[in-house]
C-alpha cells in the first residue's frame, strides 16, 4: 500500500476532488513531521504514538569492511503501536478484506 491508495480511499469517502484529497492526505503526514521536528510527540488514539528520542554516540562497525566507526549522537523517531493495533496485527480477524 502507498499514499496513492490512501488518497483513493479518502477521495471515495469524502466529496472532494482527487487533487484536494491528495493535498489533505499529504498535510496529515506533513503536520506529524512538523510536530516531531519540534520534538513534540504525536499521539493517535487507537493507532499509536510517535515520539523522538535522543541517541548518544556509540561505536558501530561497517558491516562490509568490518571497520569500526563512531555513530554520531542523533535524534530519531520511534513508533509505539497502541494495544488495539498490536492486537489487530497479532490476531488478524478472519475474512478481513
Amino acid at each position, binding site marked *: *500500500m*502507498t*499514499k496513492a*491508495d*490512501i488518497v483513493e*480511499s*479518502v477521495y471515495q*469517502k*469524502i466529496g*472532494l476532488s482527487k487533487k*484536494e*484529497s491528495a*493535498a*489533505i*492526505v499529504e*498535510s*496529515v*503526514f506533513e*503536520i*506529524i*513531521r512538523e*510536530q*516531531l*521536528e519540534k520534538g*513534540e*510527540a*504525536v*499521539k*493517535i*488514539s*487507537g*493507532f*499509536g504514538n*510517535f515520539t*523522538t528520542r535522543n541517541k548518544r554516540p556509540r561505536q558501530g562497525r561497517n558491516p562490509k569492511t568490518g571497520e569500526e566507526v563512531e555513530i554520531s549522537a*542523533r*535524534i*530519531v*523517531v*520511534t*513508533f509505539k*503501536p497502541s494495544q488495539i*493495533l*498490536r492486537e*489487530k*496485527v*497479532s490476531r*488478524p*480477524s478472519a475474512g*478481513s*478484506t
Partner: protein
Amino acid sequence: MTKSQLIQMVADRHNLTRQDAEAVVSTVFSNISQALEDGDRVELRGFGAFSVRPRDAREGRNPKTGTVVHIPPKKTPFFKAGKEMRRRVDGVD
C-alpha cells in the same frame, strides 16, 4: 499533539469542516491499520514505512507469581522512519 489536535490543524489548513477533517484523518489511519492487519507493508515516501515483523516464541515470567509462561510466536507492527523524516527530525542537513 493528539489525534483531535491533528484533525483541527488539518481542518484549518484546508478550510474543511471538522467533520470532513476527522473523516480524512480516520480514513488514513484505518487504511494503514487494515493493511497491517492483512500483513501488507505501507510505504509513505518521505514519511516512513509500516510493516509487520514476526516475533519468536519465548519463555516469559509472570512478574507477580514468578511462574514461567510460554509466549507463543506473534506478529507486531513496526515503523521505520523515511529519509526526509530522519533528516528533519535530526535537524542536520
